[in-house]
């Protein structure tokens, strides 16, 4: 016996309309970014120079990589406050391994160290069952402490012979962009595809959106979280390599506090800290926006006394605009 129900999908035009609105609402933050870009292009003659754009991307690389890692963790419903400690520790390991082998092996070692540290963080959080915020906070203290122990609190350098090679990430490359920028763009593109197109990506959203539903569907929630932390660890290690390559050295205090800027960038981009939503491109937009605001101020030469106030107001403007556009079309 079967009873027919009314077909109740909206009329086709309405569907397209609503889908268009749906698209629009997702890009409020991009609109905010565009407005700021236009304002800067009009008010300075240095902003839209290729030199400045190259710098801008170069300045975005580190925070962009960290924000990407943060976004992936946040989508899956966890925070990774170890990011900057992992960055420091893996950069140090990279330099130290590089001293006894060669620079490239050292860089590889840094990335492997980042992944391993991510694995440890994830395992600690998952196994202890502790909230990721405090779990990763404690873990990050351990990592920073280890970094101090490894270096004895001093700065570590690559061998003099390889110092030049070690600086490779600062070299100009394709289209005049720095190698760091290229690496950053490639990694973020890969991760964007992983998150938006693969089954792993879907699991990530499912775990972050409703961990219990995910578990009941047979998803290993724990391993998804561990993997998210590992990806974040690799992003941190890469960011660490960029910073070390720029400084020509590594030290235990590198980038301290930057995990919060990274989370801020992720959230400014529009990823919800509640998990289950967000996207890698949003990390990029958020990081770009934050960098851009700083860059703009520097180029405009405004008094730095007002800079912080205005930066805060601009961020507020950007996220509020994003929020309102989204709400209006909901």
């Amino acid at each position, binding site marked *: 016996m*079967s009873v027919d129900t009314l077909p109740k999908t909206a009329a086709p035009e309405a569907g397209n309309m609503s889908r268009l609105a749906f698209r629009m609402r997702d890009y409020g933050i991009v609109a905010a970014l565009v407005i700021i870009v236009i304002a800067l292009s009009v008010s300075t003659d240095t902003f839209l120079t290729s030199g400045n754009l190259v710098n801008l991307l170069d300045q975005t690389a580190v925070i962009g990589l960290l924000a990407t890692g943060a976004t992936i963790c946040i989508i899956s419903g966890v925070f990774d406050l170890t990011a900057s400690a992992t960055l420091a520790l893996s950069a140090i390991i990279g330099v130290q391994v590089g001293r006894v082998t060669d620079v490239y092996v050292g860089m590889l070692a840094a990335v492997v160290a980042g992944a391993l540290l991510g694995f440890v963080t994830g395992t600690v959080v998952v196994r202890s069952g502790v909230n990721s915020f405090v779990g990763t906070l404690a873990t990050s203290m351990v990592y920073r402490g280890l970094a101090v122990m490894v270096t004895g609190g001093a700065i570590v350098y690559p061998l003099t012979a390889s110092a030049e090679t070690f600086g490779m990430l600062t070299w100009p490359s394709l289209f005049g962009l720095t190698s760091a920028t290229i690496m950053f763009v490639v990694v973020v593109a890969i991760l964007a595809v992983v998150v938006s197109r693969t089954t792993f990506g879907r699991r990530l959203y499912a775990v972050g959106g409703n961990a219990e539903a*995910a578990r009941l569907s047979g998803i290993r929630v724990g391993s998804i979280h561990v993997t998210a932390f590992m990806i974040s660890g690799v992003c941190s290690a890469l960011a660490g390599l960029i910073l070390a390559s720029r400084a020509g050295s590594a030290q235990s205090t590198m980038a301290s506090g930057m995990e919060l800027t990274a989370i801020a960038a992720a959230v400014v981009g529009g990823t919800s800290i509640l998990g289950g939503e967000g996207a890698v491109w949003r990390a990029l937009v958020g990081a770009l926006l934050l960098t851009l605001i700083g860059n703009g101020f520097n180029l405009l030469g405004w008094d730095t006394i007002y800079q912080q106030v205005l930066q805060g107001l601009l961020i507020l403007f950007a996220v509020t605009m994003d929020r309102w556009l989204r709400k209006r079309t909901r």
Partner: protein
Amino acid sequence: MSSQKAPSIAVRGVGKSYSGVSVLHDIDLDIAPGEVHGLVGENGAGKSTLLKILGGAIKADAGGLSFDGEQVTVGSPRDAIKHGISLISQEGALVPALSVLDNVFLARWSHRGGLVSARADRKRLAGLIETTGFTVDPDARVDGLPIGVQQQVEILRSLARGARVIAMDEPTAVLAEHEKENLLALIRTLAAGGTTIILVSHFLEEVLSVADRITVLRDGALIRTLTAGETSPRELVGHMVGREIDVLYPDPQPVPDGAPVVLAARGLRRGLVNGVDLEVRAGEILGIAGLVGSGRTETLRLLFGADRATDGVVEVDGVTLAQHSPRTAMAAGVALVPESRKEQGLVMQRSVAENVALSSLSGRRTGPFVKRPAEKTAVGEIAKSVDIRAADPEAPIETLSGGNQQKALFAKWLLRKPKVLLIDEPTRGVDVAAKTQIHHLITGLAADGMAVVCVSSEIEELLALSHRVLVLRHGEPVGEYPRGTSPEVVIAAAFGSHEGEPR
């Protein structure tokens, strides 16, 4: 659905306790392959707990399971899925921000080399939709869907897994009449194809009509397993509560002549809802009927001010509610028992007492302080009158069984002694005995002069309870029927086929 035949299931000595309180003990149960097995019992009897154990969602403290005579460990949902068991849980297990498509194939997405192939999934979903007759938009985010549709998504998911055993925990509680029929037909088809179905429901007629055998649980113990053809609702209820009782709908008292209009709405519009007018008098119960997604819930929300109407007015006692919001509505004496207890009704991690007291906090305070003894008394009384069974009133409300949560939600609004009571699905997930109790409550409140607007997907309930029934279709009123109208007429109106002319 599956090439493999469903196994026979044997449950042996299964028990479970929480914080030292046993909620399930020593359950022995055998289910034959391809059988439809009904599971009934009062709220809190342990039905969901048993199903969760089968589905691997929780671990039993004692006992074991075997499939086809082989001892198996079901320690996790993964294990259960591996054995072909699929659980549709009472609380719902959807990922809010994902689309219908992604939810149906959750963790089972078609993929090529790790890349998700949405197109393949879309095709699979189209096939499933055809077999079930459900209508869902594959691209809609599930958190924007009416609860009935969400339930359909869960059912589609179980089918998509090609499960050999499907355990359904009150799947029909939120479905409208014809969709229930749809589902029951589907269950029969699946069983005929060899799938084993375990069905938990408080609709005894429904269970009797589809199940081969029925097991009754009471206080966590298995009372008896009966053959469906050889028993009656009356006997089942007797086993459920431990003695025979009458389950009859009470008749509402007639509305006194000249009773004033308490609640009136004119030209309400918002989204789907398109021009709803209604009037309810003191002592009157107005039922609203319609299909899933016809805008019944939205109408109630507009009356309460939970959403603000883009057009139209709501009047209480002839006074227009300006600045319409839940606060102003409440101040005017309106209360809304919402449809979704998890999303809109309860604060899950807080205690039963706190939840029940929440909407009437300011009524019991000395200065800024909560009058705790008064609160305890008030909550205790109301809990007794709707029969909330909680081992510990200070425990989080999420540890209560579904039906008891529903009763707490009801109690929370009754505690305010409102003038106008708006109820969305009053007896969802509530056991037979308690359901009768709630009906008595509602008719009793109306008799005392309350104006009631009640939405229910259970047409029998609605017709028995209401003085008048308003039928909505696509957000528009399509007719109003007096007491005594036959269900068929109302359903036909909801579908838009005008066999029975409205008065």
